[in-house]
């Protein structure tokens, strides 16, 4: 059984004048769907760009199926496919020409599978790419990425602009890829509900840092929303695992990571009337990234 991580990010840092990514450590096991969620400007696209050599990191390493993304850039791209909203194939004119161009680089290209995907997505080889809607172009990018059955599929906001039917088809394909062929999908998305249903593991990226990571069930189970009463504000400042959402006088509301900040630790700091309730992944995301 293959145990080499499909994607391994270690100590990755990239700094811009108004934004910094990392230090970031992240491991995506083979044969899984990994969902990366984060608000606008969290660094999701920056991370994906770095994987494909669109920019170079200030520190750290990225390995795809054991290959270093800088030293073995060709080997990495022979194993990883990329889909993003800014992919532009308009210069190729027609869908068929874009497919033929990409097929030349992919020895494992599957024409039958490509034809089936075209039917599923409602795209024809004769379609002018420039006349396709935004969703149509996203489907074309997905088709070009899926049709050669890559070991790692990296999707940056793949469902932006596509309708519910196509979204269903995309996720069905992703599940097929993972279930039948032990391939890996790394997906960044705003659609938390989609990831909640499909992703095996989820990472929450906020301001360039991974603030939570684990399986969807783990994350939901170990985080709770707590409300309590306490007058001493200093006692609840800078506690690891405690994210204060709201404070109104002596009334507090916060999200607790029960692994690092158990509920009884609040009481030991003087909290009274502590009440907890479970969170959905979306609630957790909103709390951690507010």
């Amino acid at each position, binding site marked *: 059984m293959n145990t080499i991580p499909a994607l391994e990010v270690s100590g990755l840092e990239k700094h811009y004048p108004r934004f910094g990514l990392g230090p970031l450590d992240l491991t995506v096991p083979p044969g899984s769907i990994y969902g990366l969620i984060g608000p606008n400007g969290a660094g999701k696209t920056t991370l994906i760009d770095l994987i494909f*050599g669109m920019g170079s990191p200030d520190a750290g390493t990225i390995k795809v199926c054991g290959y270093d993304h800088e030293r073995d850039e060709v080997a990495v791209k022979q194993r990883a496919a990329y889909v993003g909203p800014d992919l532009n194939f*308009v210069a190729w004119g027609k869908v068929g020409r874009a497919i*033929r161009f990409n*097929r030349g680089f992919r020895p494992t290209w599957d024409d039958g599978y490509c034809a089936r995907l075209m*039917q599923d997505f409602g*795209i024809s080889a004769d379609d002018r790419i420039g006349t396709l809607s935004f969703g149509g172009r996203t489907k074309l990018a997905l088709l070009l990425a899926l049709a050669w059955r890559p070991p790692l599929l990296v999707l940056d906001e793949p469902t932006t602009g596509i309708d519910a039917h196509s979204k269903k088809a995309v996720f069905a394909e992703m599940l097929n890829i993972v279930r039948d062929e032990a391939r890996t999908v790394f997906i960044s998305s705003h659609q938390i509900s989609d990831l909640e249903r499909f992703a095996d593991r989820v990472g929450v990226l906020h301001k360039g840092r991974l603030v939570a990571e684990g399986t969807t069930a783990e994350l939901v189970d170990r985080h709770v929303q707590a409300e309590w009463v306490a007058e001493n504000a200093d006692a609840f400042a800078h506690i690891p695992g405690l994210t204060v959402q709201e404070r109104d006088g002596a009334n507090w509301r916060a999200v607790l990571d029960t692994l690092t900040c158990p509920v009884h630790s609040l009481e030991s700091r003087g909290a009274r009337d502590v009440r907890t309730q479970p969170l959905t992944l979306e609630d957790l995301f909103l709390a951690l990234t507010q």
Partner: protein
Amino acid sequence: MKSLILDFLYRWRWLFVISLLVSAASSLFGLPLILAPAAVGALQLDAQRGVFRAVRPLPLTRQDQAKAWWVIGVPLLPLLSVPALVLGIMLCPHFQPSARSLQSARIAAPMTETMLPMEPRPAALPETSVPDTEHRYIAPPQAPEKNRPSLWFAAAIQSWVALGYAGFCFFLMQWAPQRPAENLSENVQQGVFGLLWGISMPGVVFLLPNLPRSPDTIATWHWAVLAAAPVFVALSSFSAAKLARQRMFVTAAKKSPQATTESLALTGGLTGIPLYIVNFAGRIILMVALIAVVQFMMLRLILQGNQPADGLQVSLMSMMFGAAVAESIGMRALRALPLSTPKLALLLSLIPWAGAISSAIYSTVCCRAGNPELSVWVNLAAQAVALCGWATLALSITLHISSSGRLFVLVLLVLIPSIAIQWAVQYTVPIAAIGLVAGCAGFALLIRGLRKSSAFYRPRGFFGMTPGQPTAVR
């Protein structure tokens, strides 16, 4: 309406400043308004970027918006250029020796010859009434006063034609494609537009210098051009409403038909890199050939003979289109392919190189430009090396800039080798050597940019020549 014009002036202030400076400075050479269609070009870029749509919700009538676009595109730049032009002409005698001598010649009315301490008198020069002093010959003897070039006359004529030219370009803009062609007639329409648009912008450089400088030198075709100017201004003002209406609405995307079994037949034919070369390098070569043919015919018809700048426009256009086509391919899609960075840089460079080599062939073989002491093949090789080098540098620098200011940088970068090659023919080989250095620097920059620059991977709109691609808001 006023706010739209002021907003345009503010956003494109650098273009207007350059245009006015060029107007003032080039008055010395009688080319005051060579940048007259620049405002229309900027307007087309704005239209391509969706500015017309963005202003639709503003509390302005559509007529007012149309009027604003027309004022911006047609009379604004020629009118703003008038003070610069007047200033340039007034300052002209202080900077240009020949003009000063022209004035002194007019003061000395009985004199039939203009003198300047510049060049030796030709041996065959006939005797004149002027005593033989250290003064030297500059103008032909017996030149009638009325035939002498008048800067004021030339400026007035050129301003008139420049206004009409801007009107022509604005009128043309209504046929600019808003989405890729779907059938043959749309393909033909867009092809004709591309051809006319492609030659219209730089065409002014060839038209204005050939306009009359004095009343007696007006030829028949000059009258035609002068008469056409107000016609195009009027036509442009009538087309403004249609243009504004067209550009205000998002072009409907084609609904994807259900895929048929016939359309799924994708096997066979070129794939990968060979398809890339045929598709893009072939497109550039075809484009250069088309421009060369049109220019060759146009120059022969209008100017009736070889011009020193025959190859200039083709070189300029080939390098500009080379860079523009290469950047239109979509760097993100290319970067995700299993190609090493140097190989990808080479693939990108192939497009401007194809254009540069084609234009070098046209320049040396068809126009016989180059150092006459060298053979055609040496000139061809030297020009190809120089143009390829500068084209690579131009491509890599414009890819480093994602704002529309890259157009200005691109024009500057392609002007240098094109002008040098056409006029400094005795330095053909050194120019090639400099081009080689520029090419190496450009290639190194390209590799660096592919690895490190985020500007390379931002969405671009092919300098306003295509409708662009909508991008998601993340």
